[in-house]
């Protein structure tokens, strides 16, 4: 029985259909997220308002007489938050998928190398000492968090490089060490911070409230650059997860490809942590779920994970701001509350199927 190429291409086509489905789901999640909230806006109006902002299609969309307030709510309040959720969700999922391949371990996540602890310390210092901001419209917290996480990344990287060639074990080890050191420093800062403790806790749990286009603009360049690099590296990730020697035997320089992939995934993680706080579980469960649906080929897994990460976080954030309205739950709490049981279900189902 010879599996003919036709059957194989049908198998590939099935996977491309999953792709179209994901994009459709993302658009649906965006439309729903833009519609629900304190002011509920009917779905047709939401879609029309959003489409009227796009070039070329805008002139075909008539204004059906919705109040002007709808446009302000969608475009000024909800859309930036949705875009931020997409940026953060896709960054964390993409970085998670990449690091799972580099560490050859499906349990790796974007925070494994200590970037989150760097960002957390930066944010804690900025909140406790009320650091002044030098960028208009953007307070000092995300800037301090971003700078601190980039510095952390550089320190972890150079520590890992001390042992000769930067092996992934060395990255993991120096990440853990640097991380625990930074958490200790952060605890000290929190002890003296007094009344800003609650604000720090909120930041640490991860939240997208009170965010605007300025945050989107801050994270977007790193996001575009990082995700593009990761998708370009997808083929190398396929070979690297087999092991260093095997990657080399199949024509990929493992050292160089790993360095590029580590830097790109660190940059997108740093950018998203600094604007959204430490949002857990996205980088773990989204790539994992996608791998079960689409298989482990990173040329499909990476783009699919980034889209699915966006869907997941847009949905989670919509729940975060509507479930106990007018109060808000930090979105990191939602992702963990949904993520942990979901993850257990997956593991259980796989165990049953495996035996």
């Amino acid at each position: 029985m010879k599996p003919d190429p036709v059957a194989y291409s049908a198998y590939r086509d099935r996977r491309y259909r999953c792709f179209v489905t994901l994009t459709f789901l993302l658009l649906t999640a965006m439309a729903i997220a833009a519609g629900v909230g304190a002011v509920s806006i009917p779905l047709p109006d939401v879609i029309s308002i959003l489409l009227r902002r796009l070039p070329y299609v805008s002139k075909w969309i008539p204004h059906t007489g919705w109040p002007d307030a709808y446009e302000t709510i969608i475009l000024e309040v909800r859309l930036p938050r949705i875009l931020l959720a997409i940026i953060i969700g896709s960054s964390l999922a993409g970085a998670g998928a990449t690091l799972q391949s580099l560490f050859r371990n499906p349990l790796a996540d974007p925070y494994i190398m200590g970037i989150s602890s760097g960002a957390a310390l930066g944010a804690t210092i900025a909140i406790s000492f009320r650091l002044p901001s030098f960028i208009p419209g953007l307070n000092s917290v995300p800037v301090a968090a971003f700078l601190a996480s980039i510095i952390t990344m550089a320190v972890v990287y150079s520590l890992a490089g001390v042992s000769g060639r930067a092996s992934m074990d060395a990255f993991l080890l120096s990440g853990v060490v640097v991380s625990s050191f930074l958490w200790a420093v952060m605890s000290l800062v929190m002890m003296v911070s007094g009344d800003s403790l609650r604000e720090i806790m909120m930041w640490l749990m991860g939240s997208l409230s009170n965010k605007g286009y300025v945050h989107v603009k801050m994270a977007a360049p790193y996001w575009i650059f990082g995700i593009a690099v990761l998708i370009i590296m997808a083929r190398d990730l396929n070979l690297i997860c087999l092991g260093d020697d095997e990657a080399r035997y199949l024509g990929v320089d493992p050292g160089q490809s790993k360095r590029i992939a580590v830097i790109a995934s660190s940059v997108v993680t740093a950018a998203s942590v600094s604007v959204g706080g430490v949002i857990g579980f996205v980088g773990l469960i989204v790539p994992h779920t996608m791998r079960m649906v689409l298989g482990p080929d990173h040329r499909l897994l990476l783009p699919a994970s980034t889209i699915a990460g966006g869907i997941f976080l847009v949905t989670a954030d919509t729940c975060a701001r509507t479930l106990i309205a007018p109060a808000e739950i930090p979105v990191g709490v939602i992702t963990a509350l949904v993520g942990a049981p979901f993850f257990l279900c997956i593991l259980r189902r796989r165990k049953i199927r495996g035996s």
Partner: protein
Amino acid sequence: MRLEAFSVCHKYGIIEAIDKVSVSLESGDFVGILGSNGSGKTTLLRLLAGALKPSMGTILLDSEDIGDMVPKVIAQKIAVVPQNGTIPFPFSVLEIVLMGREPHKGRFSRESPQDMDIVFQAMAATSTTHLAKRSVLELSYGEKQRVIIARALAQEPGILLLDEPTSHLDPGYQVEIMDLFKSLSRFENIAVLAVLHDVNLASQYCDRLVMLNHGRKVADGPPQEVVTEEILKKVYGVKAHITTHPVVGCPQVMLVPGFMSPAS
């Protein structure tokens, strides 16, 4: 195609794993590397494949220093079957064998019909066609070994380096796979170098045997010169009786159990 190592050395820390070893391999050769555990067989193979840099000496692939070549160019000429590594994700067998085409493709190009033909031929040659859609995580060691061999064949290499290719195979597949390598070297003019554990199997199939001991080359020649009582005693510390294979005519080892020979 020609792969040569000129008195290469390699150290792990202060331990000399390979000490001034020279070997050469040419199209059509079938060379076996023998030696006791820890004698540097795998290290020599990794040096020849360009995965390790020699601390001294040079390795030339078609008279070009392999240290100056990028992995992709090396992978177009040399395919390696390493010892069974773990694959952490559930790739299908077909996906794994298709990876053998990567050195010949651009980063973004999809596999062409020719690529698919080559891959299916490689799978047919290793009796893995029926496994195509299975996940590699579900395979037995022997099946996985044959899948990795299929991937190496899909690279269409001029040189094939094998690290104990028969270690997890039953006698039936051992003969099938070794026959395959033999026909590749004889009819396709591929240079085959295999690290082998089984002296008898090596003697039956290889044109030349290289015997390593503590990182040094102690013998290099046709099986008749290498498989001798004296060399086996020196390398493995065993008492052996050498006979001639009744069909192949090559030397075969019959080990003499320790309890049968008086302690010396």
